[in-house]
């Protein structure tokens, strides 16, 4: 659903000759609200309007274009809220709960991604759930793969941790195999660099 709306928006923008809203992400520390990551070079911040369903403060970066790869930073989602915004209130998005265990966070992202790609238009599976430290916070990483009815397959790596009872996630999703592999190492480093900024 969200991807399809994104396609429509991108086509409209392209036809209008106005695809100019991308800004270069500077190498080094970058923040999305209180979520900080250490960026490498070559990433571009997509205009907010291009990321349908994005929460306030979330950011989407890309190297080669949103259809090919994207890095999504979603800062602190409070207890009871969803990782995406559904104004129609019909998408049945799963909500984060502050007492979620790793398997539940994995399922939360998996179900959210089904909605992100379009319910009925995609199947999403997860694998390789593993522990990962994010600064001082204990969290998890896992891999995703998505099959879509009318697009290339996508692969991804997700980092997630809970801090101050809020969920922080960083998603790397890219067309499989070429574009996933192309920036996988760089994205992995960014995900592992994720921390919460407190009192600076």
């Amino acid at each position, binding site marked *: 659903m969200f991807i399809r709306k994104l396609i429509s928006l991108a086509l409209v923008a392209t036809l209008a000759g106005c695809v100019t809203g991308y800004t270069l992400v500077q190498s080094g520390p970058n923040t999305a609200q209180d979520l900080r990551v250490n960026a490498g070079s070559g990433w571009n911040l997509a205009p907010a309007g291009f990321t349908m369903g994005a929460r306030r403060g979330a950011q989407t970066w890309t190297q080669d274009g949103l259809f090919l790869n994207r890095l999504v930073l979603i800062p602190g989602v409070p207890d009871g809220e969803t990782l995406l915004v559904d104004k*129609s209130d*019909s998408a049945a998005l799963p909500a984060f709960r502050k007492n979620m*265990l790793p*398997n539940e966070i994995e399922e939360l992202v998996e179900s959210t991604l*089904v909605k992100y790609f379009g319910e*009925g238009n995609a*199947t999403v*599976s997860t694998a390789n759930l*593993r522990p990962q430290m994010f600064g001082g916070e204990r969290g998890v990483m896992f891999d995703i793969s998505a099959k879509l*009815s009318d697009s290339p397959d996508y692969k991804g790596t997700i980092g997630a941790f809970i801090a101050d009872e809020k969920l922080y996630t960083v998603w790397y999703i890219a067309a499989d195999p070429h574009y996933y592999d192309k920036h996988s190492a760089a994205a992995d480093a960014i995900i592992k660099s994720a921390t919460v900024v407190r009192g600076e």
Partner: protein
Amino acid sequence: MRLPAALVAAACLIALPGVHADDDKELGHLIPPGYVPEEANDEKGLWLEFEEMEAQMNKSALLVRDAALNNYVQAVVCRVAGAYCDDFRVYVIRNPNFNASMGATGVMQIWTGLILRVSSTDEMAAVIAHEIAHYTRLHSLETLRALRRKMSKGAVFDVFLGAAGLYGLGQMAAAASFLTFSREQEAEADLLGVKLLAQAQYDPHASYRVWQQVIAEEEAAAVKREEPGIFAKTHPESEQRMGYLRTLVESRYGQPDAELVADQELLDVLNAHYVFLMEDQIDTNRFGRTNAILERHAAMGVDPSLVRYFYGEMFRQRNEPGDTDLAMASYRHSIEGGNPPAAAYKNLGYLHLKRAEMDSARENFGKYLEVDPEASDRAMIEFYLE
């Protein structure tokens, strides 16, 4: 006893615009088996569009290629279609929603959500018979011509191509939603569908039972979909159709058997593919619908170990008050059933962990790794075991 019911059925059908009580007696196929349209007319153009979409569908990552599942569906199609069997190419598409659709060329889509929702092969056959009737009554062509009367000649195909091009395959959804059948066409397909169903020696009562399932699930849904499946979108008057089909079938074929027994053929298909079918459903996060499906499967006799496991998944992810207890009991029942997915141990272990019942958590995590030593989340489980 049958006369009053027949009169009621006739009255119901007369109430539908363009459909008359005697229509079903005369209603038949408009084209012969092996039909191909003439060159250089609008129908040929329509076929070319559907052929292009079928080529895309063949490449879809969501196409289910499992031979047993495809053979099951194909056998039902052929039994209902009879002499028309070779006219249809059936594509089973991995989509947890309830739908089937038919293109002008005989390209048929069956979504896995339909397989998950029928209680018998007769109900599967009822949906397929309805779709076959759309084909042999040339409803796509009729719809296209009706649209062309409303629009300029070129615009129809421009819109058609635009819809298909924007979304690529668009799962034929773009075309199907563009060529939405009218109420009259749906009623025709219902009537001819019942006839085909009975001719193929399937239970004609399945024609309305399948609607009863749709209505029951819709009532159980906690969150209504903004964009329902095509089947729902083009079949808005479920209750009315269920009602007139029931009256018609009972008047013509008598009362149904008192007890509905799921056939072993369908149970075998469900048991063999249950994990992926239900995982897709669980991922929709639509627990009211999932609960309705599970209740039906439990009543049908789908492998209790599998049904109980997914009850556990549903309760655990729904997480309403009392759900943790229900989920733990469901996982235990799944394990006691003797055929649990390995994840039953893992997720039971996680629930014990949440309750700080560490010994039970360790025991179930250990069992999980014993049953599935290649588990991809071994590192996570070992973290907790340590």
